[in-house]
């Protein structure tokens, strides 16, 4: 092969690899993406059954029922609307009433959010960004309470 042919072969291979990757990415994007929604979003328009979503907000005070069996129920609220959530498993250590939480799962036929993942914040000063934004949108964001600092 001449120099030119070899170079063309190489470029063609690179092109194929890129096309392959792009195809995969587009396919995965169509199928495997999870949208973040607030309780108000779900109240306004219920997601299709079996569609995975991320639900974020505050754990409503007094809503957590644990200690019945291995399933825990609680509500996630953004101040305007709230959604009932059930979760089977062990909640993260920093899961608390009145604090920010992000859960991932699907809404079932009864309108209950069945979560298979619960993420709580990892730090006292730290609020998941999606939750903070959602709260700001709903006008329930309290700057002072969220950013208690030394100075």
């Amino acid at each position, binding site marked *: 092969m001449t120099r030119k042919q070899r170079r063309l072969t190489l470029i063609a291979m690179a092109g194929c690899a890129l096309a392959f990757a792009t195809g995969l990415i587009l396919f995965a994007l169509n199928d495997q993406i999870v949208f973040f929604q607030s309780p108000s979003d779900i109240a306004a328009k219920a997601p299709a059954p079996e569609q995975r979503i991320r639900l974020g907000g505050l754990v409503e005070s007094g809503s957590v029922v644990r200690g019945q069996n291995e399933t825990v129920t609680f509500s996630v609220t953004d101040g305007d609307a709230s959604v009932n959530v059930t979760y089977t498993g062990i909640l993260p250590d920093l899961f608390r009433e009145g604090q920010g939480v992000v859960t991932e799962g699907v809404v079932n036929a009864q309108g209950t959010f069945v979560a298979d993942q619960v993420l709580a914040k990892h*730090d006292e000063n730290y609020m998941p960004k999606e939750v903070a934004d959602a709260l700001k949108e709903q006008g329930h964001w309290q700057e002072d309470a969220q950013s208690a600092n030394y100075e």
Partner: protein
Amino acid sequence: MIVELGHFMLILALVASLYQSVFPMWGAVNGDTRLMRTAAPVAHIIFAFVLLSFVALTYAYLTSDFSVLNVAENSHSDKPLIYKISGVWGNHEGSILLWVLILALFGSLVAGFSGKLPQNLKAATLGAQGWVSFAFLLFVILASNPFLRLANPPVQGRDLNPMLQDVGLAIHPPLLYVGYVGFSIVFSFAIAALIIGRIDAAWARWVRPWVLISWIFLTLGIAMGSYWAYYELGWGGWWFWDPVENASFMPWLTGSALLHSALVMEKRDALKVWTIFLAIVTFSLSLLGTFLVRSGVLTSVHAFAVDPSRGLFILAILMVFIVGSFVLFAMRAPALKQGGLFAPISREGALVLNNLFLTTATAAVFFGTLYPLLLEAATGEKISVGEPFFNLTFGPIMVPVLLLMPIGQLLTWKRSDLKGVTQRLSLVFALACVAAALLLWAEGGRQVFALIGFALAFWTILGSFWELVERVAPRKVGFARAWHRLIGLPKTVWSTALGHLGIGVTALGVLCVSQFESEKVLVMHPGETTSFQEYQLTYEGFEDLAGPNYQERVTSYSLSKDGEFVRKMHPSKRVYVASGRPMTETDIATFGFSQVYLAVGDPVGQSGLVTRIYHKPLILLIWIGCLIMSAGGTIALFDRRLRVAAPLSAKAHRKVANNTGDQQSAQS
């Protein structure tokens, strides 16, 4: 006083790195020997200053000096000694200081261990390293100063996040940072080569040990982080495709590509421009990782409480270095002498394919990591790109990589015979299929995809050692001779075999866990027994104990396998006194390479307890594979050829002189 000295040392280091950024580089470009000679001592001086400053901060932690804001926010006088030390980098400011310390360490190492480097290359490399040091020292001093004092010091500190009070914190960040930041020196070598305008096989030989060291540490750091997350977070997961994990994984992927392309450059004097490009990309991805982790744009286990101005500062550093280096690359790369060409069917051809797929995989991970950020910035829509996306994109791209690995290993340099090689590997192929079928049968799986995956993993594992088997040929020469031959094999053969074996072993572990793992969540009462796979677990009760800085409820379970008692297990729940934060501690029982993983949750009713049990078959292979890979890298590091610097021929010397001369005239 010591704290102020530490602060002062940082400022001195900043000044020294400013000198380093300007004068040795000036000397390298203009052929001024006196200026170039200052590069090495100044590199040592920068390291000494940063080290002293780091020691000062450690001292503040050891003495629990709560008049220092950073200590007051992240430490506590009751904290055990090891966490007082590791707590130094368990927060934003301290971790960036560790970053800078390792940056300066690498500068100092290059200054000390590369006596054979041409003077101008060495000076320019250290100069470029000076730029990076200067930028990050400036960041530490202006936006992320760990030495700030408090006017009214509290009596007690706020304590370190309980999740970080673990031996993992002492090991994971330093390993990872040595890997991450080590690529800065490779980047500096690339920048130096572009500025000096000379790049050849010798350059690749000088750079390869640094690529190897960084790659080894990055491998270990990622593996350690993964194991830490696995046992600490209590979800039983070992990789979450979390953006921050991806941020360390992307430089690992391009670093692996770089390792291979530098080999081609060293042996065949080809792929030069590509290697330079990869060096720049790898460090850019390291910087991007630092930005993602430390700027707080992401929700992650790794994000500390965040100040937005810092994110902007790091973003500015990121932009300057990435844009700057690519502009330099675009300007200078065309002037570099093109390397030789080669036949597609050859060792170097296979390495090109490896590079192609590794960079494509990096691109897929890059896209999945940044797409949600970009989409939110553009449309305000919030999405999360998680495991399914990466399994669907990264997974398939890895298939050709694994498939080609044993083949590439057997291809010879320059020109090779693909048909012959595939024939030689037919036995490996058959064995791999049989092994996969056996494993699937033993574990009771049915899926075709699993069979293909396992066959691929076994193919890589068996194929990695096929070169050794063939070279030694025990059946022809008898075992005594074969043993001698085996020991006498060149180190490169061993390092390649181990590196590829490690990949295969990790792949096997990943596939096994994802196919066969199982979990069970239930409420257990004292005396109750549950059976799970071939294991039986009995809950016995709990007792409340006091740790050094926490209260702990330690549960007691007894684990049996096939009716025979194995051991007691004690997962626990802790509450840290200072912060009042709860923390779950898991307990893991190991059987060969498999594990039974136990975590406890909330009490139920009078005496019940939520218990979560996982069975993780062959999970340890994931991390053992990483250890094997690192061992392969370490053997390569001791290859004699890397230590003996290639002496330049007289002709090459003259060429160098001419080249630098050309640039001077071009510049003036």
